[in-house]
């Protein structure tokens, strides 16, 4: 029974990995099915590219919850390197799995758009874990995604590339800039501060 196994179990990492894998399989199947519908082409994969990263980011965010916050604070080693590697490893895995789920058409809603959305969603969720607590960390990104999904214009680019970055095709630079900034800030904030302490039973 190694320390790594104890840490992984205390952060429900086995279940989180199962969710990541399940999300990737579901995304691959949905993308394939949507493209195959009469009158639809690869552009019909938008919902997959927007929703699958939301699901994996939520799983990653809630895995940051610790049941033993008060005892964890007495740890001899600083927590930030562990939190940082926890986030980076899970992000790398979600990115790789989901990128494989949408093959082809990198200039539209393919792997590049998927990678960008995974990074952005994970960043927003990590920031939410630092500010709201890990168990509610999925909420802001879910609300934001729902709003943008309904409000984003059908023509990409312009201001929408910034405020509706999740709905942009792969090569939009502004959308990449927003997603990367969210990732760096969110991961940095979470690593430095840790998930906000939540009182149990409240």
């Amino acid at each position, binding site marked *: 029974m*190694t320390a790594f196994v104890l840490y992984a*179990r205390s952060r429900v990492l086995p279940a989180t990995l199962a969710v990541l894998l399940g999300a990737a399989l579901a995304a691959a199947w949905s993308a394939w099915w949507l493209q195959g519908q009469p009158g639809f082409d690869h552009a019909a994969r938008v919902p997959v590219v927007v929703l699958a990263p939301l699901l994996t980011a939520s799983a990653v965010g809630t895995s940051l919850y610790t049941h*033993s916050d008060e005892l964890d604070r007495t*740890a001899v080693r600083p927590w930030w390197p562990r939190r940082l590697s926890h986030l980076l490893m899970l992000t790398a895995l979600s990115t790789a799995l989901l990128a494989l789920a949408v093959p082809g058409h990198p200039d539209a809603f393919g792997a590049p758009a998927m990678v960008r959305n995974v990074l952005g969603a994970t960043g927003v969720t990590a920031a939410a874990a630092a500010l709201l607590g890990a168990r509610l960390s999925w909420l802001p990104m879910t609300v934001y995604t729902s709003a943008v999904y309904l409000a984003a214009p059908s023509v990409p680019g312009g201001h929408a590339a910034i405020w509706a970055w999740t709905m942009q095709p792969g090569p939009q630079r502004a959308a990449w800039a927003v997603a990367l900034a969210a990732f760096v800030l969110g991961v940095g904030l979470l690593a430095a501060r840790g998930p906000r302490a939540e009182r149990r039973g409240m």
Partner: protein
Amino acid sequence: MTTSVTVRALTVRHRRTVALNTVDLDFRTGVHGLLGPNGAGKTSLIRVLATVAAPAAGRIELLGRDVGAHRERAAVRRALGYLPQEFGHYPGFTVREFVSYVAWLKEMPAARVPTAVERAVERVGLADRIDTKMKTLSGGMVRRAGIAQAIVNEPELLLLDEPTAGLDPEQRVEFRALLRDLGATSTVIVSTHLVEDVAAACQEVTLIESGRIAYRGTTAELTALGGEHGRDSDGNAIERGYTTALRAHRASLAEAAR
């Protein structure tokens, strides 16, 4: 005996309220009781000594090291045991896994962990439940698992916040014996609102009220204070001593305020 805890002008704040107000304290090897009404500042003091909360002002020296410095704090934490009033635990862990997890937090050498975990669990009388999942344990058993994690690294400084909450009378008697045993070599600070725990297990008593030290003395002195005043119907001698000391402190504060 050396002084293992030195606290000078310690002030702790929770938002705008002052939990501890310029407190000076020293603790040596032995078992020390921390008594006081609810909200007096006992938990604040324990949390600051456990290095999980930062003071607003003051200096804290634990085991001869200033905990303000990062490297020193890490060294202190290796030799520290802490039972919070409410400690969380991953519900899927067994007692063995939970105590091993804390041993890992304390950076105990991996080769020593299995034996240390078994010994700690045995000392709190949970050996027959060591491979039981934490979520299936009763409240008293969870509390004992909590005590086991606090002593797994054989701490030089042990901080226990309401350790007897949820223990039945027999377990409390056994726990007090464990405290006396631990106090022979370590500094043990027990925060409690149960005066009888202090009478049975502690050599010295510190009484805190409203963030200030109301009384310090040996358990025998506090009991003697109760013997001089009041009747048996007002509780046993140490309970009367507790009340007398608290009222004397309030009277002196009122006098000073006039």
